[in-house]
């Protein structure tokens, strides 16, 4: 008995009754055409992923759909190049990115820019010599002097007098010119 392709396909899918299946198997042993049909249908099954149907994972319809859609876009000229695509960005993200860029560039300039350690020399001395740290910014002479006056930049001196000397107040403190003081002493 010759079995057509439908019977063989049903056999391949396990849908054939046991008696019919046994009969078909006997025929497959003797009929090369039937075996060839069975091989062809198995190949088709494999190509269609029918084997994976019986496995644990289902078919990847999503990737197939994506590939198909991309092929259609390409063929119909619907696909835009990257630089022509419209990009939608949320405002907070744009602002945050701009601030981040600004801060980064500012930090680079701040730490990599000119420092006051290389401040210009003033009459043989530099800012560092007089231990002045100036926050530059719209400085003018008077402002700078005022600023210096507000700072404790001119150090005080502390001196230990000889221990053996005992002092006492001898009158009102005086401020006199040295020449006059010497002449009075003489």
């Amino acid at each position, binding site marked *: 008995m010759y079995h057509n392709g439908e019977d063989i396909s049903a056999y391949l899918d396990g849908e054939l009754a046991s008696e019919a299946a046994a009969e078909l198997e006997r025929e497959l042993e003797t009929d090369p055409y039937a075996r060839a049909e069975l091989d062809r249908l198995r190949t088709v099954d494999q190509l269609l992923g029918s084997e994976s149907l019986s496995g644990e994972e289902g078919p990847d319809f999503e990737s197939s759909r994506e590939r198909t859609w991309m092929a259609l876009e390409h063929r119909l000229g619907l696909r835009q190049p990257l630089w022509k695509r419209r990009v939608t960005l949320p405002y907070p993200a744009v602002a945050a990115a701009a601030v981040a860029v600004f801060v980064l560039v500012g930090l680079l300039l701040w730490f990599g820019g000119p420092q006051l350690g290389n401040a210009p020399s003033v*009459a043989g001395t530099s800012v560092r010599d*007089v231990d002045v740290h100036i926050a530059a910014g719209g400085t003018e002479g008077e402002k700078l002097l005022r600023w210096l006056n507000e700072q404790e930049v001119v150090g*005080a001196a502390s001196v230990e007098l000889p221990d053996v000397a005992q002092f006492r107040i001898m009158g009102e403190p005086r401020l*006199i010119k040295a020449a006059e003081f010497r002449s009075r002493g003489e």
Partner: protein
Amino acid sequence: MSARRVFLVTLTIAFLLPVSLGAQDAEDMESLDEALRELSDKVMRVDITARVTSGGEETVWDMELTRVTISGRAVTLRLDGSNITVVSKFTPYYDSDDSVLLVAQGQTWITKENDSSEVDYQTSFKSMPVELGESVVFLPLGNDELKMDVEREDTGTFNIELEVTVVPYEGDSSDNSESDSKSSSNSE
């Protein structure tokens, strides 16, 4: 305004602002340079010689000190002895090109020879116009009784003299703003 336009404008500002700040920085440096040059003309050097004298004449100990300052800024000197602390502040104010008004403020805490628990305090505020380079002497303890003691040949009394000279600052005259103090003692 579309999101793309906002993004482009913000990005442009973000990149241009640091450049603008850099230019501002350069202007500030020029301004600072100019200010420092102007400042260098107003800097003064205050030379102080502190002396401990005995009997009004003999110097038993002295010390030299140099400070750099500007008009209106005090140079402070603190002297600590066994029974005395003297804090003197000398403030020069530019009066003209070659003269200053020197203000001397003195505060003295002193204990009596026999009673260290009792402290006498004396303060003073003196001023005097002086020529640049001219020396003045500040006597925080006074010297009235000293003359009487000298007349009585009492040489056991010590006094403090602070000789102050204000000169225009010249960078090559001193390597540092604060020169090393030099002291010497002639008490032996």
